[in-house]
């Protein structure tokens, strides 16, 4: 057994990793409100995102009440039903999931996991949150203006979005578009921070290939977002100009009630292309961080190194690149050239290869692992189920010939909720249970967590599994009421009622989660610095919760990759990244290195 007790600090020139100058606030406002500490900003992002997400959850209940029990609730009319559909979709996709994965998890985990004191541009980071909050408030304001929020569907397709007759066709859509523009400006500030921090602020010994997959997922998703959001920005500005100045980028010549409209020559299809050039990468902006996080959850709680680390990194990069080549599979029914459809169906199916590879690797990591079925692990396994399910129905919808008859049916709704709502939300919950002890210094309640998991997991399946069947029957999406339609049997209504009850029950289970978070904050068991015996740097801080600056006097040096679990011959079943080979205790010898020791 050849072994050398190499110390990173003996190789690296001492001044290469320059200490960053931290801003030290002295007032309460400076520490917790106008904070430049990435961890506080992360919590601000998280609380704001979950608050606005709760609004979207309530809207989903209202939609379901209408679908499950039509003609029962007089306060739900066709207009506000469409407004619920629109705002639910946009809030969940952009203002909740994107903000949560990149703004909250990105801010909390990147500096800690790469071994940095903070983000490289703390002031821009703070601005990023406040601009995001402003965007959220603009969106909320649209509920209170004349006509209410826009009801054009979350895709905001023109000409419908800005034509009279569509709910919120004036102030509602204006506020939505301005809010999106601000969201993108705010995100760009945060996104530049995440990318540059990962590239330039890693601690000594932390190579790119020693980064935990969580950081890889967030890093790649940020790059996608930086390059995809401009498409949404451009389309929002163009639509705003169509609405306010009377330009005709997207608005064609229209005759309404015998009157020629003021627009001429615009192309609604142009909007669709721009929107989906953003819209499809957006799926992976949400999914890639989830992929990264779930990889780490599985590895930590199965006490096994992640299977195929390099493949996982390559798959993240490949999915990121391919995600820019598939956008028009959302437009198969827009009348596109069949060769165009063939191209996008092919690229869509190709993206299944790296995605499937990741799924195999998660399962192979679990294989013969020392699986601890605690709450984060349950949610991680729940994610694998939901993601496989959503991924398989994605194969249906990626193929033009199968997709066309299923377009605009509940099958599509069921598919994207499995893959883009249930799956990432499983990861969000798993991640919150996993990192809660680090953020608060207390353990979340295990029993309540398990109730929350089973209620959410079984409940979401009760919602979305039958919804696929409704789609096969031809039940359309976005309809306030289908009325007496011959091809839809009456039993479909019974199924709809059942789905509604399941949706409300799933929603109710989320109160257990919120109660658990609040209760555990003061009454939870005190957590030690590393309750899961994890290897990554965020668990190796000298204080829990970590203080401003993260790592005390000296930044950690990294000596190994992030997945040294159950290394043969080593006493402990994990070796933290900052433990030098000389400090690793072997079973039968003195000190030795970790995984990969050559003999």
């Amino acid at each position, binding site marked *: 057994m050849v072994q050398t007790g190499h110390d990173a600090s003996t190789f*690296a020139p001492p001044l290469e990793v320059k200490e960053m100058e931290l801003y030290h606030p002295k007032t309460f406002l400076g520490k917790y409100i106008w904070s430049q500490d990435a961890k506080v900003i992360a919590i601000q992002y998280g609380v704001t995102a979950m608050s606005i997400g709760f609004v979207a959850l309530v809207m989903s209940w209202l939609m379901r009440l209408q679908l499950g029990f039509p003609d029962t609730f007089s306060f739900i009319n066709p207009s506000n039903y469409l407004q619920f559909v629109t705002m639910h979709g946009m809030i969940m996709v952009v203002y909740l999931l994107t903000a949560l994965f990149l703004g909250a998890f990105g801010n909390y985990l990147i500096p800690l996991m790469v071994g940095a004191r903070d983000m490289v541009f703390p002031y821009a980071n703070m601005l990023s949150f406040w601009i995001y909050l402003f965007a959220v408030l603009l969106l909320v304001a649209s509920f209170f203006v004349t006509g209410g929020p826009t009801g054009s569907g979350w895709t905001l397709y023109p000409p419908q979005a800005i034509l009279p007759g569509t709910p919120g066709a004036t102030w509602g859509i204006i506020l939505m578009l301005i809010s999106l523009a601000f969201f993108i400006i705010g995100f*760009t500030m945060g996104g530049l921070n995440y990318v*540059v921090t990962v590239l330039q602020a890693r601690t000594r010994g932390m190579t790119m290939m020693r980064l935990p997959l969580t950081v890889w997922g967030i890093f790649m998703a940020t790059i996608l977002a930086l390059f995809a959001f401009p498409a949404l920005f*451009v389309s929002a500005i163009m639509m705003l100009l169509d609405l306010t100045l009377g330009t005709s980028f997207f608005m064609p010549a229209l005759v309404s009630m015998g009157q020629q409209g003021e627009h001429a020559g615009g192309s609604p299809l142009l909007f669709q292309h721009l929107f989906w050039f953003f819209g499809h990468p957006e799926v992976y902006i949400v999914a890639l961080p989830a992929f990264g996080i779930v990889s780490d959850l599985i590895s930590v709680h199965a006490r096994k190194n992640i299977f195929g680390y390099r493949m996982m990194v390559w798959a993240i990069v490949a999915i990121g690149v391919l995600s820019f080549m598939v956008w028009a599979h959302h437009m198969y029914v827009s009348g596109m050239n069949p060769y165009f459809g063939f191209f996008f169906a092919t690229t869509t199916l190709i993206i299944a290869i790296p995605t499937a590879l990741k799924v195999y690797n998660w399962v192979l990591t679990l294989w013969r692992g020392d699986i601890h079925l605690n709450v984060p692990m349950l949610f991680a396994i729940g994610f694998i189920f939901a993601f496989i399910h959503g991924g398989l129905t994605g194969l249906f919808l990626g193929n033009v010939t199968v997709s066309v008859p299923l377009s605009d049916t509940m099958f599509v709704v069921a598919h994207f909720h499995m893959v883009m709502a249930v799956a990432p939300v499983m990861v969000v919950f798993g991640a919150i249970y996993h990192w809660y002890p680090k953020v608060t210094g207390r353990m979340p309640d295990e029993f309540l967590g398990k109730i929350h998991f089973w209620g959410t997991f079984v409940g979401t399946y009760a919602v979305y599994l039958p919804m696929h069947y409704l789609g096969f029957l031809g039940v359309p999406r976005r309809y306030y009421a289908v009325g007496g339609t011959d091809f839809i049997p009456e039993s479909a209504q019974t199924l709809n009622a059942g789905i509604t009850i399941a949706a409300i029950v799933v929603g109710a289970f989320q109160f257990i989660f919120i109660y658990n978070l609040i209760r555990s904050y003061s009454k939870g068991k005190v957590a030690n610095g590393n309750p899961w015996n994890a290897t990554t740097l965020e668990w190796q801080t000298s204080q829990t919760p970590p203080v401003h600056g993260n790592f005390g006097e000296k930044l950690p040096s990294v000596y190994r990759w992030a997945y040294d679990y159950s290394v043969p011959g080593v006493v402990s079943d994990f070796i933290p990244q900052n433990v030098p080979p000389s400090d690793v205790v072997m079973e039968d010898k003195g000190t030795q290195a970790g995984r990969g020791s*050559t003999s």
Partner: protein
Amino acid sequence: MNIFQTITAQPWYVEQSIIDNQYVGRSSTAYAKKIALRVFLGVVAILFILMLVAYAGRMGYEDWRPVPQLKLLWINTGILISSSLAMQLAQYAIRHKKMDAMLLCFLLGGSLTIVFLFGQILAWRQLSSMAYFDITIPAIGFFYMITGVHCLHMVGGLVAWGKTLTTLLKNVDIAKVQNGIELCTTYWHFLLLVWLVLFGLLFAGDNLDLVLRLCGIR
């Protein structure tokens, strides 16, 4: 270590860990703001490319009419080139510690940019006063939007220019000033390049149509 070597490394082996332990924690020797600017320019490039693609897509329709050519844009282009040149000279001067020349060039660069912005506003007014003008004509809408977004980016650059100028006049830290001037210069060159592409393809004749035909796309 190049990108290929980076992503093919096998970090779980001791042999690799000996190499990795020497790693100092940065992917590039450039300072953080420079990297951030490069990434940001990538984002801005995508923004303008998307507008260009949207323009090209709209050109394919039968009712397309190009925007009338404005001679003033040639003059504005010359001013922007001069502004970029002045920034380049300011960068050269500070690298050779010629502080007076640097200040003069830096001031000139910013001032010419302000002149460029006024020139663009004049161009907008010229176009709006033409009999041909109708905001519903897509090419005209595109002209205002694209030039407007470009001007907004120039205004953003002027904010950074003003901040650097303040630091420069306080004379606090020569290295900080040099970084600021280098970043401004890169930004100015980039926006000049964007303008030259936009102007050359869209507003100096029907050149985009010509390029697309040459490429066999139209």
